[in-house]
């Protein structure tokens, strides 16, 4: 174990590079589904304007932790979350925080693209409408156009905005869903295996998009592809059996992981 890494509550924290502002700070997070504990004492500080990858074997709690950040676990009856999660210093589990507004600040993109059964236009316009972000039709048009442009989809759909969202290809649908997330001007974007159903070209497009979004957002991506985590993220968190085992700069995690479990997982050895 190198001296420069810091071990707290069983997690190895590598020294962070540079001084990124902390966007999401979790401290002592436990999650139970009924009486089964899915996350144990997770503490991590996630930087703004960067991509953080969550990796780890199936069932280790990546999605569970991701759902803590926009309180999606509230929607699961048996789920109980304790500990502190702050965004820009504000405790999101406070009763005063409206989960609907929180989810506008913290957008989410799922493994399977899930466009609403509506037109391409309405998919993107939906959020701005319900949050009252546009006062005129012109303004709404412009939000839809910018969001589709940021998501790299505009050129492919500009002439068919009235067609149903699910008439697009899988990769296009995933970019549509990203456009929908961006349209409400979020601060944090959570992505749960966003490329697992896409071919290499569509994957490369999404990865390029993630890299561009990094300039303005705090992105957190769950992925089972080590290569993808290595390509798109600056920081990587490795989870194992509900514990955060190791957290640090992606380059460090992939060239010199400190914990044996991290090493075994990313090199494909028996745990």
């Amino acid at each position, binding site marked *: 174990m190198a001296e420069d890494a810091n071990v707290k509550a069983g997690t190895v924290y590598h020294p962070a590079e540079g001084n990124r502002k902390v966007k999401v700070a979790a401290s002592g997070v436990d999650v139970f589904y009924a009486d089964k504990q899915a996350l144990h004492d997770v503490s991590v500080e996630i930087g703004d304007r960067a991509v953080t990858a969550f990796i780890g074997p199936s069932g280790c709690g990546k999605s569970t932790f991701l759902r803590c950040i926009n309180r999606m676990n509230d929607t699961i009856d048996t789920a109980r979350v304790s500990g502190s999660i702050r965004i820009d210093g504000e405790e999101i589990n406070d009763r005063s925080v409206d989960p609907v507004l929180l989810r506008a600040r913290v957008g989410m993109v799922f493994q399977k693209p899930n466009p609403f059964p509506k037109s391409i236009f309405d998919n993107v316009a939906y959020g701005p409408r319900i949050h009252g972000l546009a006062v005129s039709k012109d303004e709404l048009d412009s939000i839809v156009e910018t969001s589709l442009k940021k998501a790299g989809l505009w050129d492919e759909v500009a002439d068919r905005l009235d067609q149903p969202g699910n008439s697009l290809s899988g990769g296009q649908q995933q970019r549509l869903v990203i456009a929908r997330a961006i349209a409400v001007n979020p601060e944090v974007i959570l992505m749960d295996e966003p490329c697992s159903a896409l071919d290499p070209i569509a994957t490369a497009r999404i990865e390029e998009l993630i890299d561009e979004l990094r300039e303005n957002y705090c992105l957190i991506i769950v992925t089972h592809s080590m290569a993808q985590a290595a390509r798109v993220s600056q920081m990587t968190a490795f989870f194992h059996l509900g514990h955060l085992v190791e957290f640090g700069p992606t380059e460090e995690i*992939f*060239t010199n*992981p400190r914990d044996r479990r991290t*090493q075994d997982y*990313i*090199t494909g050895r028996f745990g």
Partner: protein
Amino acid sequence: MTTPVQGHHIVRAFSEELEQLTASVATMGGLAESLVSDALDAIAARDSDLALDVIQRDKRLDTLQRDIERQIIRLLALRQPLASDLRVCIAALKIAADLERIGDLAKNIARRTRELNEAEPLALSKSIERMGRLVQGHLHEVLDAYASGEIGGALGVWQRDDDVDEHYNTLFRELLVCMAEDPHIVGPGAHLLFIAKNLERVGDHATNIAEVVHYAVTGTELLADRPKGGSSGTP
């Protein structure tokens, strides 16, 4: 090489390929060391046949190096090694390159030895041999460290690198004095000088290998500011 991670890959062929790679580098290391050793024997025994043998066996090192490079390119493309596996691959690539250079230097020494054997023996051959054995010892230790993953030996060599430089500097001065006193030995003296320089370079490659082994095993780099011996402006 024994890496910090024991245990096998879930894909067994991956483990086998990495073991094969390490074995190839170890073979190359054994051959390179024997070339240096035989080149030194050839100087000591004034044995031109042995020197010729060194020259010929160097070709095998080149073949081995190309084979190792092919193995590594294949591993990178098909297995996408990470963490200690990645370090093992990169270490093999670098060490193979150092060993190939060491072979060239041994070959050059052997060529000069054949020239030297045409002339009267020089007193300073003994000092050359001592320096050579020191360098050969360093090479042996770093190759052992590579094979075992025990970095103690590699660290030792890395720290003692200036022993070789000191030997070289002393030899350099002595040879200059001898050549100044007796112009008839300028020809063979020049060969000895180059042989000494080549041995010093072999020592540098052994130091490189020590650094690479340390990185492969620990994941951290040795600091670049290695203590350097007093330089006297020798080339």
